[in-house]
């Protein structure tokens, strides 16, 4: 019997495959396509304290084996999420991870407090609540100017420290590939009490509409994701997994069971599937089963046997 159940930051998962933030909404439409308990967990779209309208203009663009997006964190705000989405999101029999974004330190901490409070109340009432917060420190559009929170170690530290104080929930910090020193930032997060790290977020990229003679996106740059970035993401996950002892969640271009094994061998405790959900809306229906079959063929009894062996 091959086992793929695992644990992430103290939360037991039926398998290591999570749906990545921004590509899965709060799960709802996918639940019509397959039972979401087939996933280890789902990460909510990025939420901020207050609702955000998102960016104007083109928001999505296709590139060779990738897509670029500039959604700009459009979201209904944490209160609306708690009121209208959380209970359904927690009803699918899979782990609930809330992706928390923000523009200022206060927005982050107030958001974390709201989430924590609501979650504890639900738990007290015996209901499934928020299993984990994923802190996104690489939001576009923030006060400090662009990706600064995710780039400079000092700025990241302030956010991680404050949010860590604001919540008792298990805390993942999602790192940006644009960090000036990724390994250093990972170690900082560990030192500040993060329970785990997830990476990578999209890579800053550009596309130009040569007919219109302007950037395709209203904000000059946008984030690249999808199979194109997988080799870069894998390298970064490998580097980070060897730099810290907290678990690392691998993200970036994963689109088959082989890719998942690569990330686990590189040291990931679990993985997230982002863009691939668009390539195959039913990806999560079969990936766990495909992973088991692959491990069977390769004679790998459990993920622990191969995790971080490279």
């Amino acid at each position, binding site marked *: 019997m091959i086992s793929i159940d695992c644990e992430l930051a103290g939360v037991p998962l039926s398998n290591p495959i999570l749906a990545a933030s*921004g590509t899965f909404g709060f799960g709802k439409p996918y639940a019509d396509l397959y039972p979401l308990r087939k996933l280890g967990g789902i990460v909510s779209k990025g939420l901020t304290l207050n609702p955000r309208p998102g960016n104007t*203009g083109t928001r999505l663009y*296709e590139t060779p084996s990738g897509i670029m997006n500039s*959604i700009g964190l*459009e979201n209904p705000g944490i209160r609306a999420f708690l009121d209208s989405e959380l209970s359904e999101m927690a009803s699918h029999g899979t782990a609930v991870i809330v992706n928390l974004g923000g523009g200022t330190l206060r927005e982050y901490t107030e958001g974390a407090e709201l989430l924590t409070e609501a979650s504890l109340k639900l738990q007290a009432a015996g209901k499934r609540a928020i299993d984990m917060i994923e802190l996104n420190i690489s939001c576009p559009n923030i006060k400090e100017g662009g990706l600064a929170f995710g780039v400079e170690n000092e700025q990241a530290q302030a956010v991680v420290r404050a949010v860590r104080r604001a919540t008792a929930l298990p805390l993942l910090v999602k790192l940006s590939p644009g960090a000036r020193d990724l390994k250093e930032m990972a170690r900082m997060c560990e030192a500040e009490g993060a329970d785990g790290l997830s990476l990578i977020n999209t890579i800053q990229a550009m596309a130009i509409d040569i007919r219109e003679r302007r950037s395709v996106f209203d904000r000059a740059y946008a984030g690249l994701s*999808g199979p194109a970035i997988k080799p870069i993401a894998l390298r970064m996950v490998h580097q980070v997994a060897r730099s810290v002892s907290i678990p690392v969640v691998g993200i970036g271009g994963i689109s088959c069971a082989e890719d998942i094994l690569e990330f686990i061998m590189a040291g990931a405790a679990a993985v997230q599937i982002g863009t691939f959900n668009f390539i195959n809306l*039913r990806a999560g229906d079969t990936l766990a089963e495909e992973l088991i079959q692959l491990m069977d063929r390769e004679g790998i009894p459990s993920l622990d046997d191969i995790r971080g062996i490279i």
Partner: protein
Amino acid sequence: MALVIQNVKLAHRIYRLTIQGSYSARMGQFFMLRCWDTYPVLSRPISVHNLTEDSVSFLYRVHGTGTWLLSALQAGDKIQLEGPFGQGFPEPQGRTALVGGGIGAAPLLLAAKEIPDASVYLGYTSVPFGLTGFHEISRNVTVKSGGTIVDAVDPSRYDTIFACGPVGMMHSLAQKTESTNAELHISVEKRMGCGIGVCNSCTVTSAGKSRKVCTDGPVFPAKEVNWNDLHRL
């Protein structure tokens, strides 16, 4: 996975693809199609053109890589489709006109079937295509090649108008309709990631609010859309 029954070329770059299976869809809804593995990344949104008990068909124009790959499909080939998605056209009230420009005719065949007494107006820059289906269903088909089909439509004669076509054409129809009582609904296009409302990439402004083309649309009341935005897409 579904099977291709037929993929016929109707005109330069224009094809009709028929796929086996029993689907139900409302007029104006669309499917996300792909007949390739992971390259290109995204599936392509295509409106339902026609439905029978055991098939669904699409009318499409070869635009770039994706539709070019679709055009190479042959009977017996496999294709992936998810859907139907979107709200489609609303229930029409009173006298109804369907106005299509070029490949914008695609979703109107199903509409013509659902609203048998609708007047159909189809405009083409050059050679018309896909007319047989319309003539079989409707006795009231006006076709124009070259020039603009909007000239042929008198909005004051209708209570409901459904339009699909180039933004410019729909905009001028909207301007013409403004002074009448007709309710104009237009089918809008924007680049789509998921097709199911989770990625927020297909938003447009309608009635001052951010709406998703894939789940709130693709059909919107012409009065509520932001034409400046649509022209830019």
